[in-house]
């Protein structure tokens, strides 16, 4: 990312982030370095993909970018200024939303879906109480769910249904930036295509920015303008998605690309073996 872009309005940036966890085990303390000097920036209307080995620090990095986790070193900047105190973080959270990796624990188990979706509207005073139900219903339909889902409890929904409720909840406040941690992996590919289309529409219409974490490189290739490849807490390769995928430079990127299951490829291989 060049400096001119990173200082402009609306850019969310993480600079030189380091995160170590101390783990106490059998009386001894050990340091785990989860993120090691990583910088990321996302501009309005841009979709940045984050891929990498499981455990390489993607979730940790994104949690730092919305202030759920404190970095050991480095800073988060929004609109060109460091996000330093509580007031700054509160301002950031009005425009940046996060959809968690785990759809099962992200929703309050005792709150009906409709209430969970209307809550952010109430907290941020975004619309008249009489309009809330209508907004909730429309948002549910946008993510491919029936408006009746509003009456259900989280434990009455399937995994993919919960995943979409979480996305709907994040979109309720019309964020400028959305961080999505593995949100389409549990969806059938038709619903997945619908959700990806929705995200692309929001990018087009509202200049929504996305940081999109996924293990599915086919989805990353389809959706993202740029991609960052992480390995053991560091960014090992980045660039325009098409050029990284067509000419991977790092060995780890090559390994990832080679391991993608593809039904056309698998069928061709089976035909060869037959």
């Amino acid at each position: 990312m060049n400096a001119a872009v990173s200082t402009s309005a609306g850019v969310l940036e993480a600079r030189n982030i380091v995160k170590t966890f101390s783990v106490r085990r059998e009386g001894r303390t050990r340091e785990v370095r989860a993120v090691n000097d990583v910088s990321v920036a996302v501009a309005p209307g841009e979709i940045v993909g984050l891929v990498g080995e499981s455990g390489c620090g993607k979730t940790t990095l994104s949690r730092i970018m919305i202030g759920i986790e404190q970095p050991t070193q480095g800073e988060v900047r929004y609109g060109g200024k460091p996000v330093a105190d509580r007031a700054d973080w509160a301002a950031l959270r009005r425009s940046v939303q996060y959809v968690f990796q785990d759809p099962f624990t992200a929703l309050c188990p005792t709150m009906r879906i409709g209430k969970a979706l209307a809550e952010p509207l109430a907290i941020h005073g975004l619309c008249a109480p009489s309009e809330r139900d209508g907004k909730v219903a429309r948002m549910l339909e946008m993510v491919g769910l029936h408006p009746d889902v509003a009456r259900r409890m989280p434990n009455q929904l399937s995994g993919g249904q919960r995943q979409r409720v979480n996305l709907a909840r994040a979109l309720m406040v019309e964020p400028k930036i959305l961080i999505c941690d593995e949100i389409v992996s549990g969806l059938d590919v038709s619903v997945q295509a619908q959700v990806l289309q929705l995200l692309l529409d929001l990018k087009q219409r509202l200049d929504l920015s996305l940081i999109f974490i996924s293990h599915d490189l086919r989805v990353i290739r389809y959706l993202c303008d740029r991609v960052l490849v992480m390995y053991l807490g560091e960014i090992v390769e980045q660039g325009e998605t098409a050029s990284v995928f067509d000419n991977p430079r790092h060995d780890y990127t090559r390994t990832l690309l080679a391991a993608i299951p593809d039904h056309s490829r698998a069928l061709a291989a089976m035909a060869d073996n037959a």
Partner: protein
Amino acid sequence: MEPVLSVENLSVRFPGRAGDITVVDDLSFSLEAGRSLVIAGESGSGKSMACQTLLGIAPGSARVTATRIGWRGRDLQKLSQEDWRGVRGAEIAMIFQDPTAALNPLITVEHQIVDAVRAHRRCSRDEARARAVEVLGMAGFPDAAQRMKSYPSELSGGLRQRVAIALALANAPSLIIADEATTNLDVSIQAQIVKLLRELQKKLGMALIFVTHDLGLAAEIGDDLLVMYAGHAVEYGPARGVLADPCHPYTRGLLRSAPTLKSSRDNPLVPIPGQPPQPGSIGGGAPFRSRCPVSVAGVCETARPGWSEAGPGHLVACHRFAQDGRRGLP
């Protein structure tokens, strides 16, 4: 060969305001030792619910009925609580869609696996610990001897999922039910786990039910493929036959909306138009009728399609196909 598992006419219903809501409707399939069945299909179509009934752990409010759920000569519906203790986790193990729920947050990974091993086998803690290291290694959990001393909250999503896989492997079960077990894993680990499950099947004659949305993965791991839509099986047969010549309009719609490495925004993915029906609203007709481009007037609204044969062992539940062999959708 005699199947180890045979599910006959399984239905799962939940009580609703206006009568029961059926989420799994008259599902039948069977599985031989050493073979794998992939279940794919719509989100919310009843895949997890069907799997849970095989382990006797459907939610308390669910009403489960079946003509028979045959498991190695027994009917799982007739097992006592006591019998179940010997089956669940030992003969049949499940890897849940939600790895966090399968793990106790207050206990280290090591203890959880040691406890699981000792629940079914008489052995010392050291032997059980050695087994824990072994199965964690199989599941691709790095540096197992050291890191198994972690608590689940100290692990990334994918590492937790590998612990769940290791737990399922702990007692060398005869059937593993993997409900989206590799969804949160990067593709190289996923490939490693698929390979491992394949080897276990060959070596130990283990049977496998593998729920996934990834049709590429289905082609790699599945001997058979069952496609579900709105609680119904709509297509069933050898994975390779079904994927080479998908016959149900829903299966075709799915394949068409799947991204491949060549997909780009210039060539947008096409979701299946329309929305799935609300569970319980299908009535007597064909489950896909509200979205089907080739429905048969006067038939699909009122009659449930039965199986027609589309190839060797390849079954499709579609009136259009039964009538004139047409497959609908390009």
